[in-house]
């Protein structure tokens, strides 16, 4: 799409690009150049370098060996990686729908006029987003403490026994809770903003029709929010599959539950920095990136098809 073949600017003001001719095209390049240079240097070059790097194996004995695609064959058959991918996949299936449902509900509730103290509530729910995930994991780690943690103490006071949040059975759920705690508010704010952007005429028409606030939410607002919801979901796919900070901090509390390959990202880190298998770690990062891209692509296709049918 070059400037010469572009339709006349005045004819379609909404899509017109300001100016025409090679002079402005050059200015356009100047505008995008800084970003594209930074992007190339910090994104494309490292990826290319890592791709090259992943074709080798650096050994303690024998030095650097070219191994072709060996690291990838290993990755695709590595039960520890596959298990980790399965784990974060499960995490995604449990945590993301729950978080999105909560965020959507909160956003809709804030958007109705039915709520008192809505500003305070909005702020309270959003606040955890400002907490570094390292700190969030430290806090929840304390709260989860099996014998003397505050939750266990609270349960004891009412004569109950708190579940073993840090045990093998519940750990994934406990991490899901931390992530939900951190990001529900963030998603809520994005959805809430999208709601506020919906022209009010659409509601007015509905309320003239006699629809109550919940029905308006269900039948008007949610369908309109679809693009925003899809976007939030895609970010969450990415977030779940790259899970690292929370399990890495929680590891000191339950080292035999959160093992070195608990999530693919934790596995890649340990491969590189404990096992010194840097080349294989690069291959694992690639496989992980590929899975995430494929995952979000499949997800987009699925939602697109559903919205059309």
């Amino acid at each position: 799409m070059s400037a010469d073949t572009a339709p006349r600017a005045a004819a379609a003001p909404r899509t017109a690009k300001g100016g025409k001719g090679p002079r402005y095209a050059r200015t356009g390049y100047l505008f995008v150049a800084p970003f594209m240079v930074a992007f190339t240097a910090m994104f494309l070059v490292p990826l290319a370098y890592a791709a090259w790097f992943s074709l080798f194996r650096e050994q303690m004995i024998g030095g650097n060996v070219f191994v072709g695609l060996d690291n990838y064959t290993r990755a695709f058959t590595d039960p520890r990686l596959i298990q980790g991918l399965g784990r974060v996949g499960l995490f995604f299936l449990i945590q993301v729908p729950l978080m999105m449902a909560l965020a959507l509900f909160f956003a809709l509730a804030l958007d109705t006029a039915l709520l008192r103290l809505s500003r305070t509530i909005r702020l309270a729910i959003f606040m955890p987003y400002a907490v570094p995930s390292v700190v969030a994991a430290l806090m929840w780690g304390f709260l989860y403490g099996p014998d003397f943690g505050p939750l266990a103490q609270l349960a004891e006071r009412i004569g109950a026994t708190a579940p073993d949040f840090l045990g093998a059975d519940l750990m994934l759920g406990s991490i899901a809770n931390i992530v939900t705690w951190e990001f529900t508010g963030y998603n809520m704010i994005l959805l809430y903003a999208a709601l506020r952007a919906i022209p009010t005429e659409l509601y007015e028409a509905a309320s003239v029709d006699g629809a109550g606030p919940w029905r308006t939410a269900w039948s008007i607002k949610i369908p309109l929010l679809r693009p925003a919801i899809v976007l939030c979901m895609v970010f969450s796919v990415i977030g779940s599959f790259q899970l690292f900070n929370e399990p890495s901090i929680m590891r000191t509390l339950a080292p035999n539950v959160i093992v070195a390959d608990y999530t693919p990202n934790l596995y890649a880190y340990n491969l590189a920095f404990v096992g010194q298998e840097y080349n294989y770690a690069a291959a694992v990062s690639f496989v992980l990136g590929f899975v995430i891209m494929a995952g979000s692509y499949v997800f987009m296709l699925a939602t697109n098809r559903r919205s059309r049918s």
Partner: protein
Amino acid sequence: MSAAIANPEAPDEPAAAAQPPREGEGRREVRGGRGRKRRSKRSTLLTVGMLAAAAYFLLPLFWLVVASTKSTGDLFSTFGLWFAGHNNLFTNLGNTFTQDGGAFTVWFGNSLLYAVASAVGGTFLAALGGYGFAKYRFRGNQAMFMGVLGAMAVPATALAIPIYLLFSQIGLTDTPWAIILPSMAIHPFGLYFMRVYTDSAVPDSLIESGRIDGAGDFRIFFQVTGRLLTPALATVFLFMLVSTWNNYFLPLIMLNDPDLYPVTVGLANWQGQASSSGGASGDYVPLVITGSLVSIFPLIIAFLFLQRYWTTGLVSGSVKQ
């Protein structure tokens, strides 16, 4: 790639907007009347429910405040969700900022430097780029933009190891650059947001009239449209600030010198100190807790301070999402 696919949905929106009432019509008969009757009751119920939700989100923060008033002994021997008899907050604060020769103070400063530098730089790059993509026609515009959007699906942490490998090759690891440069550039969402926002907030006529007045394109960008873009700039700035301030993985692998650590890595190091056998001790636990409390203030302040801008920014930016 994700948003590249999300993007085509944007033009659909008017169609989607027309659709829902149609869908709703079928259901109105079933549940129509009940909504109005319960309206006033629901508001109390909803408020109480939402307050309960808010309590859940505030609970860990409440614990954090309580815990930072306790000494090591009280921390391990009193009920976690209420204050001990003795308030140790100021001792803890003092110790946090002076322990290990004021290490926490250094980390805090580093976090500020990394977060502000990357957010300023990143916002600037995104603003220029978004404006360029939105307002200029040039060969490859569409292709480049789509390429950048495709990159959104590559997770930042999966990219971190490749960047580390490259940086260690050229000797950039263990410098502030190792944090600032990647943080500026690996959040393509900022560019996407700025393009969408510029498209709707900056009318072409404004640029045209600027040119007629004889202003250069960059001057127009800075002086005329800069003001129109303030909410978007504040939004991108804030979200980049958060992502850099909260980043743990990148600095963890890039930095070796504790004098360069940001707060996240520093606190995790202290936490390690509290839980390692090498002759350290539980005395670090209150420092970790108090340091955690201190570390969340800057972002909360930034969000409150810039609230007016980023709420507008998000609302207007989402028009086209």
